[in-house]
């Protein structure tokens, strides 16, 4: 059901149809972010805020149900009831209410994504197909496979990050009220980036999540390292955005359109303006390469990952990468297919350098977060193999790879948070000595997640690498895959070194043991379960990734 009717205005301006159900998950999460901000502002008078918002939720939910949108309506009603209940249940622990509210909204968003997915797959003859058109806002948003799979990855990562960081933020006394709303808003920005089908939406979405992340990186206001990370991220990020934007403007100069599919078609029939569009393509590559940390543009990553609070780093690593690659996939496969002769060699070389350089530098790091930052750079290289394969297999491979990377890295950062909680400052290799004897659970899960990042069976990371490498070989990029395998071998060395330090060396009895709060252990356990489950039973979600790739127009 299309809620806003098309109306012809005087002249040739047309108000586009707004198919609200196309971005139902984002609406839910945005609404929750705004409500949480309101609750935070209304300190001590939570009921004044929660009761009206509950009434609004009930009203909107009932209306949605009567309109035939049963699932989103039901979720909205449940949310409306849950809010004041939470307000009553924990009147003195507003941060707990915030975390639960954010978690519920994200779980609801995941459910809605599943509903959307089923609705789109049932296109043949089902009425749902008319509820959920493949594009909304006159083509500015696309509801295709990239969007669905990135929704799953981003919302899942955010959902795991909230309990993961709850206790940690309280320990460090930086559990300020804006944490959850900013996390939710940046998750929405990331998903919007994955759905964006024109340059304006792409740019706005990119800025929405980047601005939220600049603030989140500097969350520990008393910690100079966090401040430095935030400033560096901001300076580099805004320059990268400006470069990307200039590239977009040049594409508009060359083609006269902002819509990605139209740009793609126009670039095929281009004569005189080919130089301009090539220049635009180069600038866009720099800008987006910066966001996903491909090697010549990666220099911000180690500093920012090391300085930010660990739970924010986990979020950046897992979700930002997924969103950045979603935008990369859509830009290159939808807007630039006709410039393949230009960008495939460039991106392949970038991927090769990224894999080798990241793995090499990770070897010499002592700080664990900094090492994982270099490892995240390496993983950007592997994911790029799926992009340069320019095939459905490569597309689904990249989407799937990002999910496996997200669960592995979330688990690893969760363990780092557990270790970091009981000591001040950074976690270095020395801190891990003998952890396997003093705290086998933490050490075991950390080792499992690192094995997944290294790509050893039977973990998720192994299947991820396998799928991406297969796609690369099918597209004749054997040399790139060989470099990928080589880099995995180098990378396996430093992942296994950590495991060795934990299990083979003797413990220092004076070191405090890691401690995990309930939320932290829950999300580490979920991440570890997913690492094993996706490694042993990949068919279910791999099929999803395949259908997702087929859905992309």
């Amino acid at each position, binding site marked *: 059901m299309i809620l806003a009717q098309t109306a012809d205005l005087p002249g040739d301006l047309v108000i586009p149809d707004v198919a609200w159900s196309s971005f139902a998950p984002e609406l839910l999460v945005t609404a929750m972010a705004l409500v949480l901000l309101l609750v935070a502002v209304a300190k001590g008078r939570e009921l004044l805020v929660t009761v009206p918002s509950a009434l609004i939720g009930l009203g909107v939910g009932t209306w949605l149900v009567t309109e035939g949108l049963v699932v989103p309506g039901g979720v909205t009603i449940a949310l409306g009831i849950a809010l004041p209940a939470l307000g009553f249940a924990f009147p003195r622990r507003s941060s707990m209410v915030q975390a639960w509210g954010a978690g519920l909204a994200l779980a609801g968003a995941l459910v809605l994504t599943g509903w959307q997915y089923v609705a789109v797959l049932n296109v043949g003859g089902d009425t749902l197909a008319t509820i959920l058109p493949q594009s909304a806002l006159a083509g500015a948003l696309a509801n295709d496979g990239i969007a669905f799979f990135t929704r799953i990855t981003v919302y899942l990562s955010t959902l795991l990050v909230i309990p993961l960081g709850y206790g940690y933020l309280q320990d460090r006394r930086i559990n300020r009220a804006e944490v959850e709303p900013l996390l939710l808003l940046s998750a929405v920005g990331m998903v919007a980036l994955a759905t964006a089908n024109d*340059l*304006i939406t792409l*740019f*706005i979405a990119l*800025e929405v999540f980047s*601005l939220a992340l*600049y*603030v989140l990186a*500097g969350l520990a*206001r008393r910690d*100079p*390292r966090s*401040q*430095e*990370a*935030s*400033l*560096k991220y*901001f*300076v580099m990020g*805004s*320059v990268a*955005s*400006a*470069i990307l*934007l*200039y590239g*977009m*403007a*040049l594409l*508009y*100069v060359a083609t*006269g*359109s*902002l819509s990605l599919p139209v740009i793609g078609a126009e670039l095929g029939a281009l004569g005189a303006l080919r130089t301009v569009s090539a220049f635009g393509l180069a600038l866009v590559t720099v800008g987006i390469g910066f966001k996903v940390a491909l090697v010549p543009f990666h220099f911000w990553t*180690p*500093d920012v990952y*090391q*300085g930010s609070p660990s739970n924010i780093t986990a979020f950046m690593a897992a979700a930002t990468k997924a969103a950045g690659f979603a935008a990369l996939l859509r830009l290159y496969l939808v807007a630039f297919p006709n410039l393949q002769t230009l960008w495939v060699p460039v991106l392949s070389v970038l991927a090769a350098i990224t894999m080798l350089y990241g793995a090499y530098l990770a070897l*010499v*790091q*002592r*700080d664990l977060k*900094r090492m994982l930052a270099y490892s995240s750079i390496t993983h950007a290289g592997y994911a790029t193999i799926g992009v340069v394969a320019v095939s459905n297999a490569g597309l689904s491979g990249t989407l799937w790879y990002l999910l496996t990377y997200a669960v592995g890295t979330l688990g690893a950062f969760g363990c780092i948070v557990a270790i970091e909680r009981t000591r001040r400052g950074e976690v270095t290799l020395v801190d891990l000595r003998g952890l396997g004897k003093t705290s086998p659970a933490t050490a075991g899960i950390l080792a499992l997640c690192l094995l997944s990042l290294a790509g050893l069976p039977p973990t998720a990371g192994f299947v991820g690498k396998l799928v991406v490498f297969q796609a690369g070989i099918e597209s004749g990029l054997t040399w790139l895959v060989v470099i990928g395998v080589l880099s995995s071998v180098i990378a396996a060395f430093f992942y296994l070194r950590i495991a060795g330090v934990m299990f083979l060396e003797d413990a220092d009895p004076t070191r405090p043991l890691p401690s995990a709060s309930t939320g932290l252990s829950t999300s580490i356990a979920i991440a570890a379960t997913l690492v094993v489950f996706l490694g042993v039973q990949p068919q279910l979600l791999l099929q999803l990734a395949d259908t997702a790739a087929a859905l992309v127009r």
Partner: protein
Amino acid sequence: MPIGYYFILSGLMFTIGLTGVMLRRNAIVLFMCVELMLNSVNLTLAAAARMWGGPDGQVFVFFVIVVAAAEVVVGLALIVNLFFRRGTIDVDVPQLLRF
């Protein structure tokens, strides 16, 4: 006036901004250079909108202005905080994150 002049001017502005970002170390000046880059984009978009004769480019300009304003809010807050902490806004001075 030929439309190409606008593109040349905006290209120059962009280059000046980018050079400034790479050479200057004062956070405020750095910030001004980023704004210069964004404004060169605006000029390009407006000129291209004139060239192609559609509203798209002009609409984009408005969005860029809004985003630039939001960036100013976050950026200035970070810079002010930095100044209160260390009494300088030289971006090279805080160097704790090295390996």
